[in-house]
């Protein structure tokens, strides 16, 4: 296996850094980190349970990463980096992988982390009974077995060269084998992990406190003594607390709050281009959206540059109806689809709607910009003869009645580590959430082949074709991607915002000497 020396994502990141400093926001440089201190982090999503295998929201991923370790972790360039596994290799066709474990890792109950625990953890994670989220996002794993005390062997159903990246999925954490059998429920409240921190206090609706794990396997890390994670009812109150200096770090700021927060005294705004997107989901199996001309007409009715300005407040990138953008490794750049109401009108007439088309677009109110996008789509599409009414609803009702069932609604998805993951999650015929019911066999074959291919150039070509196919066929409209926006106090050092939005790296964070003593 090989990693490219330089890729597009890094280029984008450095470009973004230049952009940020041009705006007058300081770019922190690497200086010797000072150990010690308490970091206060703000969250606007309450973590419910501590079992890392059952984590479903970013706040739970954050705690999972602090309290547990996985085999590999995801770097900001979307490559796999060592965690409990220090090296790995595969056979020629990438159907068998061997991961070598570090020998100095131990759980918080004092037991060493061995291959036995890894096998037990993956067996539990892949068991459908566990109903672990992301079970199908790891890769086509067939079998996991121990190879001595400190190595494990993974067999896959089909060749899969992304396995080390797949295993970085935030729920793929290693738990002690004995406790998985005895009391799996116990992990909901009582963590036993090998992560950089240990739990001190867990009041899910107020604050979660963790302290440095003195036995962590990386020397001299973590640097912080304690981390306090405070939960706020919504993004705005978390932003207010950031401005008032009550927290040091906020990993999610709404685009509408960002400028105000980033301009706060002693606060650095964080902008990271990401593959997070909102899309207009259409049921391709039923009229009117089973007619490609209707989907294309709607696609031509969207002014994508304006969408970035209106919905993402400029903190985003326009999309071309493929879920892959510059934040991914195999992004294929293509010219942006134009805003062409006349052509859209003609296509609609051709499809049998010369007098326009009446539609109801559903948007959940969480996050807030779902409904903003719905309203902007309504207004933009008027010119081409679409008469769209927007129906907003609360999130529970949306999940229950519309998501994966509705014909026309606004979807919201986080960036995934690889092109394969996002395609297989949403757009292939056997996708976990096949909400568009596009069911295009040629596309399925393309994605399956790319997943199997180990040759980088060949893969790039296959994924490029897949992106082009989505752009042409428009199974869903992806008008814009959102940058991840965050904020930190200037004295917080070593924190890098991860484009995937589900990885944090708190063991590398420290407070500078100018931090207030508490």
């Amino acid at each position: 296996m090989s990693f490219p020396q330089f890729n597009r994502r890094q280029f984008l990141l450095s470009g973004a850094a230049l952009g940020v400093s041009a705006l007058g926001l300081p770019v922190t440089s690497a200086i010797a980190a000072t150990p010690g201190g308490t970091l206060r982090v703000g969250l606007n999503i309450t973590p419910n349970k501590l079992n890392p295998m059952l984590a479903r929201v970013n706040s739970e991923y954050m705690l999972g990463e602090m309290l547990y370790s996985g085999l590999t972790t995801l770097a900001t360039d979307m490559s796999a980096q060592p965690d409990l596994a220090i090296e790995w290799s595969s056979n020629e066709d990438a159907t068998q992988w061997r991961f070598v474990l570090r020998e100095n890792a131990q759980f918080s109950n004092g037991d060493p982390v061995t291959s036995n625990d890894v096998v037990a953890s993956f067996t539990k994670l892949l068991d459908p009974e566990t109903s672990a989220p992301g079970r199908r996002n790891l890769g086509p794993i067939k079998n996991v077995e121990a190879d001595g005390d400190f190595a494990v062997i993974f067999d896959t159903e089909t060749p899969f060269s992304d396995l080390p990246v797949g295993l970085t999925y935030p729920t793929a954490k290693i738990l002690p084998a004995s406790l998985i059998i005895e009391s799996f429920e116990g992990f909901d409240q009582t963590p036993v992990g090998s992560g950089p921190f240990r739990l001190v206090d867990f009041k899910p609706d107020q604050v979660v406190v963790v302290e440095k794990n003195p036995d962590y396997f990386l020397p001299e890390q973590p640097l912080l003594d304690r981390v306090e994670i405070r939960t706020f009812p919504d993004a705005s109150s978390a932003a207010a607390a950031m401005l008032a200096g009550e927290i040091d770090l906020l990993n999610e700021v709404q685009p509408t709050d960002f400028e105000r927060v980033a301009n706060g005294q002693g606060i650095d705004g964080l902008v990271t281009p990401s593959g997070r997107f909102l899309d207009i989901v259409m049921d391709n199996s039923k009229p009117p959206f089973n007619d490609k001309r209707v989907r294309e007409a709607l696609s031509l009715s969207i002014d994508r540059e304006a969408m970035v300005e209106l919905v993402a407040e400029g903190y985003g990138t326009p999309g071309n109806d493929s879920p892959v953008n510059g934040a991914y490794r195999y992004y294929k750049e293509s010219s942006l689809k134009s805003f062409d109401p006349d052509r859209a009108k003609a296509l609609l007439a051709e499809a049998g709607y010369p007098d326009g088309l009446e539609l109801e677009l559903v948007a959940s109110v969480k996050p807030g910009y779902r409904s903003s996008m719905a309203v902007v789509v309504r207004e933009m599409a008027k010119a081409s003869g679409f008469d769209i009414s927007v129906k907003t609803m609360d999130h529970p009702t949306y999940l229950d009645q519309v998501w994966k069932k509705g014909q026309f609604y606004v979807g919201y998805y986080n960036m995934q580590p690889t092109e394969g993951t996002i395609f297989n999650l949403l757009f292939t015929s056997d996708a976990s959430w096949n909400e568009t019911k596009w069911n295009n066999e040629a596309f399925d074959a393309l994605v399956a082949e790319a997943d199997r291919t180990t040759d980088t150039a060949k893969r790039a070509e296959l994924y490029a074709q897949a992106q082009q196919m989505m752009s042409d066929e428009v199974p869903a409209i992806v008008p814009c991607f959102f940058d991840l926006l965050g904020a930190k106090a200037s004295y917080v050092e070593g924190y890098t915002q991860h484009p995937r939005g589900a990885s944090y790296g708190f063991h590398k964070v420290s407070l500078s000497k100018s931090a207030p003593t508490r």
Partner: protein
Amino acid sequence: MSPEFIIKRFFYLLVTAIIVSMIVFAVTQLLPANAATMILGEYATEEALLALNAKLGLDQPAWVQYWQWFSGVLQGDFGISLRTGQAVGPVILSAFGNSAILAVFSLVLVSLISIPLGVIAASRRGRPLDLGVSLISYLGVSMPEFVLATLLLAWLASPAIALFPASGYVPFATDPLAALHHITLPVLTLTIVLTAHVSRMVRSEMVDTLESDFVRAARLRGVPKRRILFKHALRNSMLPAITVIALDIGYLIGGVIVVEEVFSFPGVGRQLILAIQNRDLPMLQAGALLMAVTYAVANLLADLAYALLDKRIQFK
């Protein structure tokens, strides 16, 4: 006041609590999505949903679920939160304690401020002072808590002024001063809104009383004005004031929910909102029950206070 009366009222309270719990349960059955849908969220598959429903007992008929919950409550067991897996009893009680701090501080402040304010306004009826009090009261009554709370937050907790913390909570046991500092803005919000309400009521009652025959008689007898105001008139106006304050407990509970959400204060209100958002039935039931009982008890106490203030009132 007879013991029978108290027993009777206590029985009513019990019936109220049971009816409230039935209504809350019935309403949650009508809502789309249940706890399993919310726990699995966007990761739900058909099998996972069925399995989780069975595990949480949500696949059973509604009346079976209700009976299981009810029989648990009879034994003092409020169940396990479907959202966090923690026991509901201790969580909701500690949240209730926090909310009670807000409510009690607000009520005491309201009583201390609004009654004298109402008396003064009534005794200067039609004069500038009365107009001033009335105007401020109108503003207070017509200003919803969430607007006032947000205004106070944006003003007094802004980074430029930063007189008070924008959010959070410190237990009184850890640091009483910091605790007071944290509850100031929420209590202020509740107090301003309720003061407007109560002082308007006290004022209008006082106006009526000041015009009644016995006050005129006292004035003709040459009783000093101050004595008439506070000894004769106020005591007679207190009964309606107490009714208003007791009824306002319902209003206060609603206000507490709003204020807790705005100031991220960990009380029953926040628990209830989280419970509703996540369809966490046991937590929702316990929270609603607690609020209903609080309201009923407050009214019972108000009735008892009547009897103490006015010897003519006897409850049978």
